[in-house]
């Protein structure tokens, strides 16, 4: 965070200009206007305003921090505050220029969100001359305000910042999960205080608490750990109590965890970049559908979920082997594009008029039954959740066992250096095929669950995006790490589902988050222990 280069007054100006461009982008892309109706604090602050405020906050603080002297130097409050003010002003200047330009020419011919509503927002509803001055003044004010945060001691600053971030986040999750609206002013304040205080206390007492825990006798430590495990398991089992929609999100997340665990074996362990992972997912789903749907009349057999499940997994595994043989001799990115191709081939063939008489083409296969055990039907997401959890546990178990076996070591060796691995007597194709088939099996399992969850499947559900999502899940989570897969799925599948508020902008945010995450934490959220080591040594500049 410390900057050794001498301070320059140009720094806040450029920081502010960049901030201005970002603010302008948010306005023009429509996200500000679209979330004007979304209250963070009911009747007071909307999400749209929060977006603009956030830009001021982030860039003013950055500018102020850059101006703040190092720890050993004399504090320079004026310089810090002035930097904040300048950057805030610059953001306003950019927005003001935009508004003035908008008065002269019709920007809507190009930018569809350059609407009067937006101009109104930016001029505080005061119209052009007055509004512009207010906007500029507002910028300076915000700049000074957030610049002042740089003057606070770091622990306090962090708590304050966390509290401020927490309010909109909690508001969004809250309103999304429980279909409420924004928080009340009182709730917002409560969230702010609780989060800020909690973080502050954690920062203060983290060390002593931990030290005390470590000082406990080994036995007590063990029972403490056991207790934590029990709590965690109970927590996982209790989650569906949140309601059907959260359970629905959990089921989707679980299906991605399952796929992630499988793909992790292929990409994370064996280092084979597979971009067509959805193919096996599709095969699992289609086999499940064909074997259980009463709609399919050409197939002489129509069973229940449990009978069909092993066949779905088997079919996917078999497909993994058959598809694997021709492609596994290929190296690196050839493998990537060929597997991508396979994924598309499966989807297109399933969609085709050619197989339409058998598997429905664009009409898909409907009426897939839900799993039933002794008359108990898993007919809603709250119940289905448990089946998915069992699937994930089995998958995680298999993945862990394989990782610490001869096979796992061979895969790791192949990932590290294919040539040398071969020179150690490892049959590359055979070992890769094992990874591919295991991954395919888990994907097939996920597909079967997906089919029964949806009760109807369509080729469109098995597009490239699914493969990309799963890959992103395991990489954002931390390649090769099993807890990472879970965190990754929660972060990239679960949370976006919760943040449906942003509807049109979901993929925009998703993309931005992917880029941001990779830049800030290239090793993933919860990396495999050894990978973390490796990366930080390799490039100290990306480490925090």
């Amino acid at each position, binding site marked *: 965070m410390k900057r050794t280069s001498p301070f320059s007054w140009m720094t806040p100006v450029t920081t502010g200009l960049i901030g201005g461009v970002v603010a302008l982008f948010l306005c023009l892309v429509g996200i500000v206007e679209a979330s004007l109706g979304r209250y963070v604090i009911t009747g007071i602050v909307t999400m749209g305003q929060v977006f603009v405020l956030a830009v001021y906050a982030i860039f003013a603080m950055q500018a102020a921090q850059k101006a703040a002297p190092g720890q050993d130097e004399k504090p320079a409050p004026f310089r810090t505050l002035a930097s904040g003010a300048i950057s805030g002003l610059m953001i306003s200047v950019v927005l003001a220029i935009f508004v003035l330009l908008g008065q002269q020419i019709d920007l809507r011919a190009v930018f569809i969100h350059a609407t009067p509503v937006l101009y109104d927002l930016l001029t505080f509803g005061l119209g052009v001359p007055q509004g512009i001055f207010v906007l500029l003044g507002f910028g300076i004010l915000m700049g000074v305000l957030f610049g002042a945060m740089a003057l606070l001691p770091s622990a306090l600053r962090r708590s304050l910042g966390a509290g401020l971030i927490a309010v909109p986040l909690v508001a969004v999750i809250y309103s999304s999960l429980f279909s409420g609206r924004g928080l009340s002013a009182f709730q917002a304040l409560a969230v702010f205080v609780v989060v800020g205080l909690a973080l502050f206390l954690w920062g203060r007492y983290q060390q002593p608490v931990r030290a005390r825990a470590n000082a406990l006798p080994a036995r007590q430590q063990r029972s403490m750990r056991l207790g934590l495990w029990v709590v965690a398991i109970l927590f996982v089992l209790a989650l569906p109590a949140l309601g059907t929609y959260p359970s629905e999100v959990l089921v989707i997340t679980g299906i991605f965890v399952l796929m992630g665990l499988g793909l992790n074996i292929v990409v994370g362990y064996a280092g084979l970049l597979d971009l067509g992972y959805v193919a096996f997912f599709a095969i699992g789903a289609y086999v499940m559908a064909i074997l259980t749907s009463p709609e399919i009349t050409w197939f002489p057999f129509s069973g229940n979920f449990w009978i069909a499940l092993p066949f779905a997994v088997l079919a996917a595994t078999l497909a993994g082997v058959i598809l694997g043989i021709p492609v596994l001799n290929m190296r690196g990115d050839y493998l990537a594009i060929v597997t991508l191709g396979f994924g598309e081939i499966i989807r297109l063939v399933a969609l085709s008029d050619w197989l339409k008489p058998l598997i429905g083409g664009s009409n898909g296969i409907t009426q897939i039954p839900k799993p039933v055990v002794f008359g108990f039907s898993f007919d809603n997401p709250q119940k289905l959740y448990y089946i998915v959890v069992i699937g994930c546990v089995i998958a995680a*178990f298999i993945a862990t066992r394989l990782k610490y076996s001869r*096979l796992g*070591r061979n895969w*790791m060796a192949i990932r*590290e250096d294919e*040539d*040398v691995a071969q020179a*150690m007597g490892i049959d*590359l194709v055979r070992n890769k095929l094992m990874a591919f088939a295991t991954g395919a099996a888990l994907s097939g399992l996920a597909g079967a669950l997906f089919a029964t969850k949806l009760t109807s499947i369509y080729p469109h559900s098995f597009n490239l995006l699914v493969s990309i999502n799963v890959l992103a899940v395991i990489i954002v989570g931390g390649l090769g790490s099993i807890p990472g897969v879970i965190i990754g799925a929660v972060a990239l599948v679960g949370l976006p589902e919760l943040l449906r508020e942003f509807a049109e902008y979901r993929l925009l945010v998703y993309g931005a988050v992917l880029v941001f995450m990779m830049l800030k934490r290239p090793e993933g959220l919860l990396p495999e222990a050894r990978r973390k080591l490796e990366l930080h040594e390799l490039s100290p500049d990306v480490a925090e």
Partner: protein
Amino acid sequence: MPPLLNARDVTKRFGGLTAVNKLNVEIEENAIHSIIGPNGAGKTTFFNCVTGFYRHEEGTVLFKGEPLDGMQPDRITREGIGRTYQNIRLFQNMTVIENVMVGYQSHLHSGWIGAVFHTRGQRDEEKRAVEEARKMLAFVGLAGRGDWMSKNLPYGDQRRLEIGRALATKPDLLLLDEPAAGMNPSETVDLMEFIKRLRSELGITVLLIEHHMQVVMSISDKVTVMDFGEKIAEGTPQEVQNNPMVIEAYLGKGATEYGTVGSH
């Protein structure tokens, strides 16, 4: 007794360049055999032909009387040929013991089922593998380092580990590509002793590429000299040292090129 390895007229070309030209080498069982020659003489290329990474266009390589030509490298390793690399190629992000266990893997048989269900056979096998690997680490002088990340080892130990990993494949013939490169004099002396122990204690035949003349001349039974892909001399160290063609090929070169790392 027929030679353990018998290379006949091996020729390897890269485009217009003939890297190895009609090379004939016979390696007797239990011998320490060195190949020397200036950089680019085709020594490592020859290694790659023997181990199956390159396919030679002409000639044949017989191992224990059977041809190896066209076999996949992993197959050749299982036939009993181990190797190390000129620029150390460890599995950097695996632990020391894991590296050795990968070398040992072709002597293990448990598969997917065993791994997932931890069958009795698999557990016994893993135990055996760890024991074997420990023994091997002790043999190469890395006892107690098993849990180090292999890239964190000092340079000399990385060389040892690489040899240990190759030994774990239980080869009859070990190909060492410049094992003394980058070592200081005392490490070099240790290495020479170590290579002799390979033969005396494990009964392994060693084929060595080396620039370090002291090593070559003091431990080799037989030396083959290559230049521009061809064999220009062969014989005992003394014979080779006195061969005028060898002197011509080496004069003014040998010492300066010592330690430079060439690649293909």
